[in-house]
């Protein structure tokens, strides 16, 4: 064991997980170079601009993963409340003073270095940590409504509501992930269904309200999307996406040969899956699905092995959320779910997302890293 530790001083923790992440990251370079060709041309940047940018964040991301995997989960547990509070503060700040980009106020500009930063990405991780912590702390009374369910669901709603105005998709993803985590963390399923019931009830009230006052709530865009999803071939985005997927065939049109990158909205993030299938075919798409499935599997194995509740919950929550995000991104492209705007972890352009995804996997790897040395309490 000691020699293994010694030879793998950098990549600590679950090796297959490291390998899967590594493959994913390598693939992301090929994909992004081609998918950002149009974006680079539009911005009058050299074609390799985004490749280098991505490379920079990948290096930083891998460093973060490696560093965090050395932190004992216990320490994460200790700081999780503070992180969550910090994320709430940042989200409020963003809502009030954030930078607007693409009609959404999701960004804050960091002082001094001048880079923009997306607090919702940070909040994603922070919230999951916080929920895992609360679930762990309340295991004794976990079936209780007022001393377990309510104290957990309220912070979840608060965070999600702060994100929802600018990024509904991410807010929903987080909400669903938290509910799933609560389910796994043994919160009474009764209350979860209750919550869903209340949610549906509130939504229908809202819907009715919207049909009466269409100017206040954009009900028609919701219904439009649902209607489009259920009754048609999908909007032009999905149509292009499916054309791209058909174009790809089994082996794809080859790296750099995508036609539809010029037509797909955001071939480097929202529709990266369609782009990948076009260039690398069904095999490329299958590879991606397989990689994320493997990641989920490895996370599940870690959960299985750990003796610590917090470790199990935090690993599961983060892993589930990121893999779900990846699968939703893919599901949109093949019209399994209505159009949302979720990027694919690691495969999409975007520095903040990459760094916090790396942070999340760093934590998971940390859990696997300290598995054997921790003594059960």
């Amino acid at each position, binding site marked *: 064991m000691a020699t293994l530790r010694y030879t793998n001083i950098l990549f600590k923790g679950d090796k297959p997980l490291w390998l899967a992440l590594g493959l994913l990251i390598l693939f992301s370079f090929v994909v992004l170079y081609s998918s950002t060709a149009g974006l680079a041309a*539009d911005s009058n940047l050299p074609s390799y601009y985004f490749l280098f940018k991505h490379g920079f964040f990948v290096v930083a991301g891998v460093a973060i993963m490696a560093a965090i995997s050395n932190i004992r989960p216990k320490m994460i547990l200790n700081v999780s409340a503070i992180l969550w509070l910090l994320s709430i503060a940042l989200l409020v700040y963003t809502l009030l003073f954030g930078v607007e980009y693409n009609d959404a106020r999701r960004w804050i500009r960091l002082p001094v270095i001048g880079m923009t930063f997306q607090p919702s990405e940070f909040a994603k991780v922070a919230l999951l940590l916080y929920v895992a912590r609360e679930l762990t702390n309340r295991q004794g009374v976990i079936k209780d409504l007022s001393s377990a369910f309510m104290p957990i669901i309220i912070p979840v709603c608060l965070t999600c509501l702060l994100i929802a105005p600018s990024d509904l998709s991410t807010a929903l993803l987080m909400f669903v992930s938290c509910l799933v985590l609560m389910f796994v963390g043994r919160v009474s399923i009764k209350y979860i269904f209750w919550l869903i019931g209340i949610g549906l009830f509130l939504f229908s009230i809202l819907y009715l309200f919207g049909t009466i006052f269409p100017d206040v709530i954009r009900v028609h865009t919701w219904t439009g999307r649902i209607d489009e999803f259920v009754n048609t071939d999908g909007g032009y985005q999905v149509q292009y996406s499916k054309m791209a997927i058909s174009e790809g065939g089994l082996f794809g049109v080859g790296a750099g*040969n995508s*036609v539809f990158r*010029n037509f797909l909205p955001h071939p480097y993030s929202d529709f990266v899956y369609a782009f990948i299938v076009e260039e690398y075919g069904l095999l490329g798409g299958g590879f991606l699905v397989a990689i994320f499935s493997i990641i989920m599997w490895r996370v599940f194995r870690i959960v299985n092995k750990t003796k610590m509740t917090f470790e199990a919950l935090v690993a599961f929550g983060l892993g*589930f959320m990121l893999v779900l995000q990846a*699968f939703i991104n893919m599901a949109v492209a*093949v019209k399994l779910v209505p159009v949302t705007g979720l990027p694919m972890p690691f495969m999409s352009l975007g520095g903040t997302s990459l760094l916090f995804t790396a942070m999340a996997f760093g934590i998971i790897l940390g859990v696997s890293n300290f598995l054997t040395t921790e003594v059960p309490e």
Partner: protein
Amino acid sequence: MSQKGNIVFNGRLIFAFIFLLGLSIFIKTAYVQRVEGEKWMSKRDAIQLQVKPLEADRGEILSRNGRVLATSLTYYTLHMDPLASGITDELFAQHVDELAYQLALHTDANLTPGGWRERLKTARETGKRYLLIKKNVAEDELKIFRQFPLFSLGRNSGGLIVEPTKKRERPFNLLADRTIGRDRENKPVGLEAAFDDVLSGQEGKMVWRKIDAGVWVPDDIALVNPKSGNDIITTIDINKQDIVESALLKRLEYHDAEYGTAILMDVQTGDIVAIANLSKLENGGYWETYNNAIGKSTEPGSTFKLATVLSLLEDEYISLDDSISINYGKAQFFEQEMVDAGRESFSMNRTTVQRAFEISSNVAFANLADYYYRDTRNEGQFLKNLQSFGLRDRTEISLLGEADPFIKEPGADGWSGTTIPWMSIGYEVQLTPLQMLTFYNAIANDGKQMRPRLVQEVRKYDSVKKYFKPQIINKRIASKRAVSQVQSLLEGVMIRGTGRDLQPTYFRAAGKTGTTQLNYRNGKSNLKYQASFAGYFPVKNPKYSCIVVINDPKANGYYGSTVAGPVFKEIAERIYSIDKQLHVSESFIPDRLRSLSSELGYQVGQSEELEQIAEHLDLPIDYRTQSEYAILMKDGQENLSLMKRSVVHGVIPDVRNMGVRDAVFALENLGMQVEVRGEIGKVKRQTMKPGSKIMRGGKITIFLE
């Protein structure tokens, strides 16, 4: 169930869900491809998306000195789609004025900003999605257009439709135009055609979208970037090409000829330094319309006698001073009579081989060939010799469409008793000018036959992709003796024979005239001629060979010596004047050459150099001084002496009449500081008197004429 066990159990449920989600994504992906695929593919075609090839930048054709002979420039046609996706009503209203203003400023459509504004608005209202903005926009200008309001929204959203077209430009216009060639239009020709695969590069791909009925627009950026072609470096020297082409043109106009061709070849390498092909146009002007130098073989006439005489000498049937019969310029071969063209023959019964060649007697060589080769056992020998002279093969120059040489085979159709005599004087055989020149060049090159080379290198940017070495066709086309004998024949032509008026003024050339009757078969009315001249220069260490062929001159004579020869002479003289390699010592000779030929004497300089000049000019020197400096004295009628010009040590020498270089050299060697006044010429005056004592480091000023 334990707490942990519960967590794991719930987690397992979720894990199963995730796994199923992944599986269903994969299945749905396959479903979209396999089941819905056809629908989506037809939908793709219906939304009218096309991938078309995107032309690559064609490589450049360069001269041997790197000047651009042909290059591709891209121009753009700009249209606007006022209904492009990014142009909202709001944006349009906001920016239309500024855009109209910019368009009025940068287009020449004679529209005011108000006019443009109307056009843009009408187009948007009526749904015209392909509004012409400007044609023939250069790369730099396009950048400006891209920054206009709305257009700056970018590809597919700003409405600017950019369609590139490539134009091939030939900066030197007429010069070697046909040899450089054309890459498209009717039929590709010249180097453009022969090196098309090298030049053309690799096509890219571009997506075209249909934006309106019948309106296809290309995407702004390439789907697959094309790979630009390689450049080719030719052997053509554009300055020499200019000399050759203009010399030919002048003569064609003067003689109102049908077409003419002239090729200048580097003797040692076979490089085609210049190649001109001018044909008369309907409007009476001349242009490069057909590569007669390579694409068309004609009966060469008397220039072919070189092959005949070389064959006879090679087979050792004759020697140059053999007395042969020319029978007052007349001969009968079966029912056909042969007559000499030159008047001199009519007063001669017999003469030497040398003289017969110099005056280009048809009868002499027809008789000789008939006598030695008519025998059926020997006719094959003549053909065999022609084969080894390279006259029966194409030169395999790197151009398409080289015509085959035509030389009859014994026993073949049309072979008769008169074939050998007529063939010997250049009839009943056909050669291209280049094939003939390749033969003459071999003679100039002491028997070593080089393949004509037109392309030296294929390059991509600065790296050489392929280098074409000078190629030897035949190391020795005939014995050293025979070759040197025909060299002296060619030299003799220029001294005493049909080319005596064509001898360049400052050096010597060798060559042979030729005059071919073109339509001798159609009776004697309205005869047409082809005048030609092939030769090389200078006689000692020949540097260039050159052939000039002028077809159907209609005015001012028709002989090779008066029509084609003068082109050769002008080319030789002008090439000589600019080609530094031809001069023994570049700074020294040109001025002196002129004065030597006029004054032939009183030149002061280094003995060795003076000697070189004299040798170069084939001027015999009777007396040579051993001293370093000498004065060149005219000695009697023709001969020269190099008399001692002494430099006395320790005293200032007399540098008057010396060239500036020699004067400075001599004085500086004595430790003087020399100041030169005046531009050119010999030293007229010097500040310190000859014979006065030298002071080291002393200053002396010399004044030039």
